[in-house]
């Protein structure tokens, strides 16, 4: 479905990615892991053309995404839930959900069933929601664009444990429903049980790729330990 080979990305003169390889197949949940500053978010930004990759290939369903503007990439069927609960603060919950919606299986009703709190607060301004609710809204907003591949960047970062559980419950539900997802997160205990595959980045390169079961303590200590 998504196939990324040897991408290299620069921020001005400084190189951030030195060859990232990543693959997500239909129905798969792939975790992109690595310590802080290893290039996870830059990889996401490169996929969406926000910080375009200078070299390498990014293909989605055999369509070349590299050099496309962000909105074309999103229209091709990718949906990004960016880092840090990004919704539109001065619009209502419903406006957030409906304005960028595209037709498909995900409807307002279905999103509100996934996150009942969004239904309770549908006419409230997004900025009046709690952090967790904003994150639910950000996920719901992206689902409403009916992406074939959902990209979640640090979806549970900085949230209260109870809210985290609710988000993880939703992510598990998405997996059961066969939603292809690329997941960036740090909490191994949540990721490992649900991920089909893990890709680990170290200093801007893919250094490990495999099933979560194969992710032994040696690999963890080397690439994921603090």
């Amino acid at each position, binding site marked *: 479905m998504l196939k990324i080979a040897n991408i290299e990305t620069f921020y001005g003169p400084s190189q951030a990615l030195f060859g990232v390889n990543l693959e997500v197949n239909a129905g798969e949940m792939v975790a992109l892991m690595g310590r802080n500053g290893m290039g996870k978010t830059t990889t996401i930004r490169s996929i969406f053309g926000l910080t375009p990759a200078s070299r390498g290939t990014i293909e989605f369903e055999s369509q070349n995404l590299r050099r496309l*503007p962000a909105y074309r990439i999103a229209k091709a069927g990718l949906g990004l839930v960016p880092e840090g609960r990004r919704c539109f603060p*001065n619009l209502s919950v419903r406006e957030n959900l*409906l304005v960028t919606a595209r037709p498909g299986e995900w409807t*307002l009703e279905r999103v509100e069933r996934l996150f009942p709190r969004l239904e309770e607060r*549908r006419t409230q301004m997004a900025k009046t929601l709690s952090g967790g609710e904003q994150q639910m809204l950000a996920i719901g907003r992206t689902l409403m664009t009916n992406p074939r591949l959902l990209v979640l960047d640090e979806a549970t970062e900085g949230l209260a444990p109870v809210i985290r559980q609710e988000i993880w419950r939703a992510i598990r539900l998405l997996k059961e429903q066969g939603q292809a997802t690329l997941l960036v997160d740090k909490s191994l205990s949540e990721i490992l049980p649900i991920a089909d595959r893990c890709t680990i980045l170290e200093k801007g390169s893919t250094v490990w790729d495999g099933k979560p079961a194969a992710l032994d303590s040696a690999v963890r200590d080397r690439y994921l330990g603090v």
Partner: protein
Amino acid sequence: MTNNIPTSAVSSKPTSNSARASMPKHSHSGGSGAAPANQADSHFGRKGLVQIALLGLLLLLPVAAYFFGHLYYVNLASRITIIAMAAVGLNLAIGYGGMVSFGHAAYFGLGGYVAGISAYHAFDFTPFMTWPISIPGSDSLLVVWLAAALLCALLALAIGAISLRTTGVYFIMITLAFAQMIYYFANSWPTYGGEDGLPIYIRNSLPLVDTTNALTYFLICFGGLVMAMAVTSRLMKSRFGAALTMARLNDVRLATAGVSPYPVRLVAFVISAAITGLAGALYADLNGFVSPSVLSWHFSGELMVIVILGGVGRLYGPLAGAILFVMMETFLGGITQYWQLFLGLVLLGVVLFAKHGIMGWLAGRERNE
């Protein structure tokens, strides 16, 4: 005119609870019990009262002045109304779209020149052009308005298509540059008066009504202002308006959701220019005169000052700003030629102490602030 139903136009599906669907902004309860109180608030609360007072006074004072025979004040009210309408157009670009256009005088002036040139040819019985198609002059306001709106939209489409590829200070400068090009063009084109301007000897007319009557003409202008505000309000309550707000707040976020911000902004820019252009056409007919001064950057600046004074991104902001601006210009300007010193002080006060402009100060904050 009050618009506290932020979601109704956006929602494509009916809600199970209609009271909820129209529940305005401040309710945190999420319960439908809060709806009636808030609805009352939207019509009769402080904001509603201020809005009704502004529109009501603008409508009633000139009517009273007319019946007491003070035509000067009727024309003054027409002037306020037209300037407010031009600022409503600019506010759509600056306030709602985040596009700080420093060249809206171009559309105001073009609208004015459409009225002037059309009347000039109608008066002379000469055609405006004969090739490739023959276009005669016209003294019909309906024709003038249609032509003004269309030409301003076309001009804004061209200017916007280029300018909107830039952002920030470059956008400000490029819109200014385009407007100045048109200013110098009008200034040096002798056919239509050059820098001396172009008189309109007989006000353009409408079927059935006497447009030369001051009160009639004021009511026409008032209708134009209300229409412009209604269009803005409807637009901002629609899905398009929400997308425009998204483009203003964060265009990257909008793009990653699959919507290109560029066409959204361009359409808003074009509508904004058409509204300002219509105001320009009304202004030329009010004064019986159009000159390059309405195309100059001073006028673009004045419109910006009015929008900022009144409250950026507030539906009634341009009206409040225009009332204050024209009043100061008229009454302080009659006392001293240095009246702009006081305008500067007021602007300073608004920027420092009333960040959301006169409307924010009078009516409280709004949901998009």
